[in-house]
């Protein structure tokens, strides 16, 4: 359902070109749990940003569910992200002035759909009893669970997780990856960026990047 063809991304630092991706071809099927792995500077986060429409490739084509997303304008990309993609960030990135359930409701509000499933999502990720707590009252692992519930709010086709366990202890990291496995078993397509091999091995497939290219 996700098809990347010859994706290149070049950043410019003044007049100096910095190639982050040098022609990546990748297909991810519906229902897969894929780990993007590589050392720092390999291009894995850049590739995640391309798939998540946070950034545009310098050249190449990206199609998601048959739609050429490379040609969408900014508002169309925002709408696509809202309805088709769920994001989980390294730093949790919850809105601190909203309670847990309000953070989960937010994408639903933005999509102007009913939000009565927020509580059930918090149950799904294992913190239904923390619905009214503010993020500052939650542990790192719990905050990340709220972030996952928020990412699932609009039943996205793809769940993108950028280093979701980077700020968690080992036990919490394992719990989060277990949760991803659980969601994947329910049919959710998940792409996770990680630099931790033991976590990447728990995905269905590992895609390795080095110097902006896929490596075997």
């Amino acid at each position, binding site marked *: 359902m996700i098809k990347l063809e010859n994706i290149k991304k070049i950043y410019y630092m003044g007049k100096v070109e910095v190639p982050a991706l040098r022609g990546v071809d990748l297909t991810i099927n519906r229902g897969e749990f894929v780990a993007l792995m590589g050392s720092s500077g390999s291009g894995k986060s850049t590739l995640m940003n391309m798939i998540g429409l946070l950034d545009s490739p310098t050249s190449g084509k990206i199609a998601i569910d048959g739609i050429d997303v490379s040609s969408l304008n900014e508002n169309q990309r925002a709408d*696509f992200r809202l*309805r088709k993609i769920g994001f989980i960030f390294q730093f949790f990135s919850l809105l601190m002035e909203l309670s847990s359930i309000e953070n989960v409701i937010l994408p639903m509000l933005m999509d102007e759909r009913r939000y009565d499933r927020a509580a059930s999502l918090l149950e799904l990720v294992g913190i239904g009893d923390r619905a009214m707590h503010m993020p500052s009252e939650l542990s790192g692992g719990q905050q990340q669970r709220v972030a996952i519930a928020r990412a699932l709010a609009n039943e996205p086709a793809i769940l993108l997780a950028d280093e979701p366990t980077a700020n968690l202890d080992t036990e919490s990291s394992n719990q989060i990856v277990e949760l991803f496995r659980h969601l994947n078993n329910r049919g959710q397509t998940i792409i996770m960026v990680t630099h931790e091999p033991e976590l990447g091995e728990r995905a269905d497939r590992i895609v390795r990047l080095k110097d902006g290219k896929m490596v075997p």
Partner: protein
Amino acid sequence: MKAWIFLAIKDLSKRRRETLMVILAITIGVVGPLFTTALNNGMQNAFVGNTVDVYIGHLQIQPDTGEDFIPRSESVVSKVTGIKGIQGVAPRIIGGVAIESNTERIGIAMYGIRPSLEEKASTLSKTVERGEFLDDKDKYELLIGTSLSEMLKVDVGDTVLIQYMDRQPVRFRIKGIISTGTWELDRYGIISTYNTVKQLIEKDDATSILVRLERPDDSIMYRTIIQKETAHPNVKTWQELSAGMAGMIETFGAISLLTSAISVLVAAIAISLIIYTTVKNKIRQIGVLKAIGARGSMILKIYLVEALFIGVIGTVLGTIIGMFLISGMQQNPLIMEPEYGMKLVITPWISIRSIIAADLAILLTCILGGIYPAFMAAKTNIIKAIWSG
């Protein structure tokens, strides 16, 4: 509820202290212009209004150049009285006399009026503080100003001697003490009936004829009409006669406008600063919002709504407080009463139109103040924002 309203409310609630402080700044920004405008209007009324209403009239027919009196003044009065749009016409005769009490003797201007005509042509009859106003039938009765009465140490019922040139002094009884707010009548003039003064100074015609209009702003138009009707060229408008004072009031008005503009500018800067600071501090959150699907327009709305909310609350509060202060001062007007000077009663007032104009100006400024930072927030680069801070 729309997502952007929800987020704006949540954001404002989280920053209650800062929000309240900016609301306070806006409130003061509204109170200032409202109060200074009302005070300026009150001063204008006190200075120019008093002078026009009591002393110079909306129009004044004066003698021709080189003459001291208006020939056939009674005929001029009747012709002008018949013109539509004219509320009142009253002749006045003026002569220089000496006034003597038990303690003082000074030179003074003596005005002769027709009391029944004055009641329509001026507000002189409403300025009596003690005693009574004159009646057409009065003879040897006087009205004197508060300042002069203090100087001469006389009051209602007392008598004074009035002497014209080297004629025999005549005893007058003080019928009323007036406070007009003009130097000319409170300190440097006394008033008796027209026929009494005419007889005293041995003249037949009026020195001036006051005209009161239904619409004072039409003075120039009516000047032309009166000149045609009476074939009398020397007709002055109140604007011409009060030019010096009007100029002073205009200066006060300009200062008031300047201080109001500064208040509005301060409000704009306050709003702009708080929204800008919020955007800077929340750059990562803005990035996350955009990452999860918020359009730039939604981000813009969040911060514009916050600016508008602060502006509306501040404007409403400021208007209420301003009107409260103005109302309080209307119940307790500012009274300026220098020794031997004219007494001024300054009662502030402000029209609904001015209030609405001031409020709209502040509101518009609040929105404009919030636009730039809101726009910057909407244009935030998602990746840079997420990785910032």
